[in-house]
């Protein structure tokens, strides 16, 4: 019972399209796990298999220690889900949908419901068709967050939220983590994953390309350095692991593979450092690198 989600070698075909192609995903109990990938990479498909809505073609998948297809209904008691595309019933109010989903799941916390409506500034009296995409997403989010589920599965839950609401969302997820709940958060918004997640799985074309903590993944990539030096530097271009070197007199910008950082710093200090900023790679850059690797 260490892992909430255990997926190995998952394959799913839609006709001739292969949506998942040997995907692996492990989510540990109590962590916020980022599930990162560009559009069409198979995040929603994976999640739908975990929810027993789609049937896996091959591979194994375990959810909360059970079989997601055969034990779907009993497992769903213990999780809450926010779909990527939230569609509501045109003539049901948001409040009714929240209550209905909560009751189906076995009850929801009234105080938390009121609190969340307040924080997300959601009017529960509007009818389904009157909500914008963001507000429909809020309805699903309130329904999920107000439940007492041990696992939250959120499929790109912030794609319709404005920045202010995204902050509210982030603080909510933070609280969930503190309350000891497990969160699987799919996203293609990197800053969100960076801000929230303990561990990340990166997928591309239905296959996991990387998995680990953010720190684990950073060793794979480069550090960006910009420095103002006392004298013009020499020999930087010849150093191993240096990319994108840009020298303008005594100003230097470059990227360096993290395991060759040492040599670069030594060369810079020889020239005399006035100012220096170094930045860990953003997930954006991490991503780009995987694209490059794939393109080659």
């Amino acid at each position, binding site marked *: 019972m260490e892992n909430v989600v255990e997926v190995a070698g998952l394959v799913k075909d839609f006709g001739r399209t292969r949506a998942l192609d040997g995907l692996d995903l492990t989510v540990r109990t109590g962590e916020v796990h980022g599930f990162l990938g560009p559009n069409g990479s198979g995040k929603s498909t994976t999640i*739908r298999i975990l929810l027993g809505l789609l049937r896996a073609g091959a591979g194994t998948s375990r959810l909360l220690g059970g079989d997601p297809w055969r034990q779907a209904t009993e497992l769903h008691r213990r999780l809450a889900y926010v779909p990527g595309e939230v569609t*509501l019933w045109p003539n049901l109010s948001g409040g009714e949908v929240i209550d209905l989903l909560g009751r189906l799941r076995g009850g929801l916390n009234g105080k938390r419901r009121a609190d969340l409506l307040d924080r997300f500034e959601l009017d529960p009296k509007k009818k389904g068709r009157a909500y914008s995409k963001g507000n429909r997403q809020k309805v699903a989010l309130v329904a999920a967050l107000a439940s007492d589920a041990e696992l939250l599965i959120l499929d790109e839950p912030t794609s319709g939220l404005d920045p202010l609401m995204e902050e509210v969302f982030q603080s909510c997820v933070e609280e969930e983590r503190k309350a000891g709940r497990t969160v699987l958060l799919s996203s293609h918004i990197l800053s969100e994953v960076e801000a929230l997640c303990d561990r990340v799985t990166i997928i591309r074309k239905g296959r996991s390309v990387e998995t680990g903590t953010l720190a684990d993944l950073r060793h794979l990539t480069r550090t960006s350095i910009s420095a103002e030096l006392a004298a013009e530097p020499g020999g930087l271009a010849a150093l191993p692991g240096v990319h994108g070197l840009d020298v303008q007199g005594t100003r230097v910008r470059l990227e360096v593979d993290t395991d060759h950082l040492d040599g670069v710093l030594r060369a810079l200090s020889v020239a005399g450092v006035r100012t220096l900023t170094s930045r860990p790679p953003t997930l954006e850059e991490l991503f780009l690198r995987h694209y490059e690797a794939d393109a080659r």
Partner: protein
Amino acid sequence: MNTAILVSLWLRRDRIMLPLWVYGLTALAASTAYGFKSLYTTPGSIHSFAAGVAGNAATLAMYGPIFDQNTLGGLVAWRSVTIAGALVAVMSILLVTRHTRAEEEAGRLELIGAGVVGRRAPLTAGLLVAVIANVTVAVLATAVLAAVGLPFAGSVAFGLAWLASGLAFTAVAAVAAQLTESARTANGIAVAVLGAAYLLRAVGDAGSAHWLTWLSPIGWASQVRPYAGDRWWVLLVPAAFTALLAVAAYTLTGRRDLGAGLVPPRPGPARAAPGLRSPLALAWRLQRGTLCGWGAGFVVYGAAIGGIADGISTLVKGSSSTEKVVIEMGGGHNIVDAFLALGMGILGVLAASYVVAAALRLRGEETGQRLEPLLAARAGRIRWAAGHLVIAASGAAALLAAGGLAAGLAHGLRTHDVAGQVPRLTGGALVQAPAVWVLAGIAAALFGLLPRFTGAAWGAVGLFLLLGQLGPVLNLSQWVMDVSPFTHVPKVPGGAVSAAPLIWLAVTAAALAAMGLAAFRRRDLSL
């Protein structure tokens, strides 16, 4: 140009539904004309039938007066212009709503609206599709009527009368689509206007205030009087009405935001009612409004059948062949009972339409992406699907009971036998239920096994309807007739009831539904 692209897109989306309507309505015109032609072969028989109708307030209300009591054309126009013209109107309403408000509600027009299409193009495209459908129906109806041997000028007038009804309600639907954000409500408004128009005409034709007929678009169509003077000038009235409403629809479109209606939606409750806690309760919540609408229709129709029945013997006195056909089709020995049994059969077909529409909600909810969050919230596939099927099946039974009850009351009041007729006709309507359930079973089986073809359940309704209508005429062999569940329904009142076929039908329905549910449990959702 962009409108043309939209029109061809809509026509492609309608490539199944539209031909069904067009051929169905054409077949209706043809079979009515053909039927009358073979039943009333002498001027004498035509005249005595017509004289009977003229004196019966209930038939006047249902169909209107017979303007030429001496010709076959007069009978055909009487039987078809108003009531089948209302069907043309229904087709028009559904088409317009489907391609204007429904698209907008689904958010698809936004996609198009953000493109290069002008803001009026969607309305124009929706109207054009309806116009194309109406003109096709009118031309085909004219052609088949002339082919049966009716005068050509009168057949043209008949086609134009249908066209007038269809276009008037095309325009009504176009305005309704501007008023509300919901396609269902827009349909409801337009159908309510149609109902009111029919009622005005009914009261005007049956009573002494004949001017009421002139307030109704359906009345205008009948006043064209095809085969009975062909009053072309009357067509100017619906033409002006249509033009006026079309202008109104365009003006309203120009004044509102995309996606919005002119009437702001009422807010709903902040909390769900305590009962809304199961898939069944949700299905009821989603379907109850539609069921009430159908219920009103069943009550009116039942009352109409019950109201006419007593006078039927005077109607057919002149034609022993009509009497023979009615008795043959309706069963029993007595013409009134046979007519009532036929009416109960029509209630059955109507209930079959309801049950299919209700069962198809399953597919609508699935492809509308509203099923995903429910199942993830522990609704359970079987419980969810069974919820909708239970509403469909019990709703159909309730509709039949309501229709039968209304027929029993109306017939009972006329014959001073309410206590006897109410249970008799309610029972007569309810024996249709097992056959109706078979259609729910077919829809469920398709939904589970061939989800992409769930809509083919409508094909089954059409097929069974055709078998029921044409079987006796074409002398189809028994095994072909046996395909239709309605063949196995006892013809009551009048005929004998045996439980065995009813039980078999119910078992078949249950088996089909169980098959569908089992397959649904094993398949991927369409997401």
